[in-house]
């Protein structure tokens, strides 16, 4: 447990922030140039396929962060681990941002492709529900000061919200939706041409690095907040 003391963590945070700062802009420029210039147009969608390079990674990040914080919340509720609580607090805003971004960019892609900004199909609606859960999560983090109540409410939200995750994932297969089925599968070949997968994964890397940076900064802020309260006892 000594390894996870705030002192050790903050040293690693500083190292990671420095590392990300040193490589971020190079990867950003490579990713953007692949996404906007080098990658080919789609045979049907033309250049609007480029929106996918920010839309899909955002959606993935929004979903995975929610799964991560939901599991952490439940573990934190059972075992009361201080670091897990800080993790939840630092990750939630990032997840909300990317969920919103994926909804907005998806809607911008939908206008030229489908002919509508929004449709109440199962995928889009369940994504909106995920956003709602993020909002409730963050509001409870802000307004419930009592720790015991807060963890209870967060666990309820997590359980309700995590049921939504497989619904989002499989909505396009279970029901008829306007949204197309997944192009990239864990097993089997993807139905995206390799020349379009490169920018997709590069942009995913860029956004993941960005998430890591924000996460580390927020985590450091939380540690400082706690240390400030205890400064007299140091």
């Amino acid at each position, binding site marked *: 447990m000594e390894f996870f003391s*705030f*002192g*050790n963590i*903050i*040293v690693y*945070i*500083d190292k990671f922030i420095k590392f990300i700062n040193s490589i971020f802009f190079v990867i950003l420029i490579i990713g953007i140039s692949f996404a*906007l*210039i080098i990658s080919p*147009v789609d045979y049907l*969608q*033309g*250049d*609007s396929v*480029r*929106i996918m390079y*920010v*839309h899909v990674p*955002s959606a993935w990040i929004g979903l995975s962060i929610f799964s991560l914080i939901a599991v952490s919340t439940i573990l934190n509720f059972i075992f009361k681990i201080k670091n897990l609580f800080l993790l939840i607090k630092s990750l939630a*805003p*990032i997840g909300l*941002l990317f969920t*919103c*971004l994926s909804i*907005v*960019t998806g809607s*911008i*892609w939908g*206008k*030229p492709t489908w002919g509508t900004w929004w449709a109440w199909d199962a995928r889009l609606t369940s994504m909106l529900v995920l956003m709602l859960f993020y909002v409730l999560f963050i509001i409870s983090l802000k307004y419930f000061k009592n720790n015991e109540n807060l963890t209870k409410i967060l666990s309820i939200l997590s359980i309700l919200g995590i049921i939504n995750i497989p619904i989002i994932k499989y909505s396009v297969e279970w029901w008829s939706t306007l949204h197309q089925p997944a192009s990239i599968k864990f097993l089997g070949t993807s139905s995206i041409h390799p020349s379009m997968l490169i920018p997709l994964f590069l942009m995913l890397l860029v956004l993941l690095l*960005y998430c890591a*940076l*924000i996460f580390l*900064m*927020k985590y*450091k*802020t939380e*540690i*400082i*907040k706690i*240390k*400030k309260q205890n*400064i007299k006892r*140091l």
Partner: protein
Amino acid sequence: MIIEFLKMGGYGFYVWLSFLIVFTFCSLLFYKTRKTLKKYEKEFAKELDKLPAEHKKRIAKSSKVISSILASKNKLS
């Protein structure tokens, strides 16, 4: 050629709008996060200054958190 590139085969508005939105909101969150971090680092350093000198010296050596905060504060000034 540049106009061609900006037009993106008629989809320019949608493509640029979505990249712009992503970029803007990401930078907003970044600056907000950094501002809060700097604010708390500063406040922490201020609190530390109020402590008696020898006490301060002792904890500055032993606490990694404090040395990290002081290091990033020194970089600023």
